[in-house]
């Protein structure tokens, strides 16, 4: 496999949830992820950004196999995994791990850290108890925690330490692709910086590829090589992080970047123009989904949905006016 082969490739992947009325009859579909095509190259960090409700978590969970995609393909290391049943996909998915948003809530409060870390090995491998314990100790040292932490319960750890345990648990099975879902939300800035540094160290040491889902644009800018901006289930702009941040082409990306307060920069509150909130995803506008909030919207935007197309600098944007 050449280094440029995508480790993960999505083609027109959609995830829909049925909407039901009070009697359980289906009244429609909520398209949480709608025709997303993405590829992740081995070794890179792809940042997925967007506001809450834009489908970024659903996208991550669909790739991890927690939700079944309704249409489209998901190829991981060359094989199709979207249509596999959970049992069939289990061996493949050992190498594709999903890191939950709040590791404190996803650890069993009755289990000591040592047992929680050992569990994936019990399920997925045939290692002996001694080998398992040796590997737990190795990974714990790699995430910078002392061995004494194995005998603690999750509530005895601080937020930053819980993230470390979450990462350690992911690393147990030696995955190649890790989906990090909002890995820094709820952390203080001083802790956030150390946790991010740990992610980067682990990536270099264990040869990982990250799909980094976050709403924090300043973090994504710092850590990822490429980004994909999502709005209401669609990717509206994607490209190299530096290019997109330097000159965003889609009006939504522009407003998202303009909304981030930057210390020492211009006051966002004096220039910010985007009004309103995203429309209800069960009742999407026709044509371009952003047109109800877009300052450049024209009649054409209501009639025809812009496709994600290549621009001259290699990025892709889904806007009629982007060039």
């Amino acid at each position, binding site marked *: 496999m050449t280094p440029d082969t995508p480790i993960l490739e999505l083609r027109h992947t959609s995830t829909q949830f049925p909407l039901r009325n009070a009697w359980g009859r289906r009244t429609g579909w909520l398209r949480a992820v709608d025709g997303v095509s993405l590829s992740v190259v081995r070794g890179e960090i792809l940042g997925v950004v967007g*506001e*809450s409700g834009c489908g970024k978590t659903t996208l991550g969970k669909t790739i991890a196999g927690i939700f079944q995609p309704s249409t489209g393909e998901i190829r991981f290391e060359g094989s199709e995994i979207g249509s596999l049943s959970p049992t069939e996909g289990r061996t493949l998915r050992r190498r594709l791990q999903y890191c939950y948003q709040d590791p404190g809530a996803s650890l069993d409060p009755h289990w000591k850290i040592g047992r929680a870390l050992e569990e994936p090995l019990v399920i997925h491998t045939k290692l002996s108890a001694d080998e398992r314990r040796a590997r737990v100790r190795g990974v714990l040292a790699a995430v910078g925690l002392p061995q004494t932490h194995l005998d603690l319960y999750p509530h005895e750890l*601080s*937020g930053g330490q819980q993230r470390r345990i979450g990462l350690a648990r992911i690393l147990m099975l030696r995955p190649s692709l890790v989906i990090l879902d909002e890995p820094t939300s709820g952390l*203080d*800035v*001083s*802790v*956030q*910086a*150390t*946790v*991010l*540094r740990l992610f*980067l160290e682990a990536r270099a040491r264990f040869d990982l590829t990250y799909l980094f889902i976050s*709403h*924090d*644009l*300043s*973090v994504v*800018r*710092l850590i990822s090589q490429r980004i994909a901006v999502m709005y209401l289930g669609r990717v509206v702009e994607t490209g190299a992080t530096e290019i997109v941040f330097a000159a965003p082409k889609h009006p939504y990306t522009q*407003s*998202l970047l*303009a*909304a*981030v*307060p*930057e*210390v*020492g920069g211009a*006051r*966002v*509150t004096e220039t*910010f123009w*985007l*009004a309103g*909130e995203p429309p209800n995803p069960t009742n999407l506008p026709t044509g371009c989904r952003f047109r109800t909030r877009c300052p450049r919207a024209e009649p054409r935007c209501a009639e025809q949905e812009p496709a994600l197309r290549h621009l001259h600098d290699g990025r892709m944007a889904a806007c009629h006016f982007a060039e």
Partner: protein
Amino acid sequence: MRDLSVTFTTEGGIARVLDGIDLSLLQGEIMGLVGESGSGKTTLARSILGALPPNARLTGQTLRFDGRDLLTLGARAAAEQVRGRTITFVPQDPFSSFNPLFTVGDQLGELMRWKSPDRQPGERIYARARKRADRDRTLAMLRSVQLADPERLLTKYPHELSGGQRQRVMIAMALLPEPRLVIADEPTTAVDVTIQAQILKLLRKLATERGVSVLFTTHDLGAAWEICDRITVMYAGQALETAPVASFFREPMVPYTRLLLDSLPSRDAGLRGIAGDVPSLVAPPTGCRFHPRCPGASDVCRASHAVAVALAPEHWVRCHHPHREPVRA
């Protein structure tokens, strides 16, 4: 202009959550209170409001608001005249602060019944004329926080509103009693950046137009930069530095403030955190509570917490070894 100065110490059980905080707020000013979680920002906000949990004890020299000492004011008088009237609160999570069983209109009506600026102290009957005036006032306020179609909004239940709408209604509720001080406790942590920008804009506008003072607690330094006039940094229950916003970011003097600003994700600085953990408040470090993590700590830091000195105009510092040179030119 009337000065508002607060000086107090609280004692929550045996944990010393706040340790000798001095703070003053001027009329129409937005004071940012920044610090990491567990630094005592919310406790400080709550003690001004008089809404501490029952196991907390508030001690201090003075806690004066508008010429009145809130420490000696009785609980009844505080509830009647101060809390919810001249000092109001915008909570962190607007969803859990609404009652899910009543419509937004019911809840706003209930608020106006007891806290309307027209109400005389001790008044028990809700007269028709006042009710009508209050309703008009409510609708006007909802329009001024940029909520479309306020009549329909009043008939909705809290879960029918989006996060941004709920936070706007909360701001409207905090402003309806025509307070002189609004305490906003992390009002933008639960909302997205585009909504955050709109809400910050709203707070800034209201403070400027109505002359309301705002105590804005946040852990987001970017948000503090956006709208604050002055900023106070807290660490483990101690206030370390107070400065006008420009000099706060240009020439922070306390080592903790510098490290905090360095932890912000940015291209040139890379990833720098602060080593170590926030200390336990039950057995806090002696003297300056930051000394175990401070690169410039000395024996005098372990022995005592420095008294506040103004090293530049309006720039108060409580540190034995402040940096004196600006960060960048």
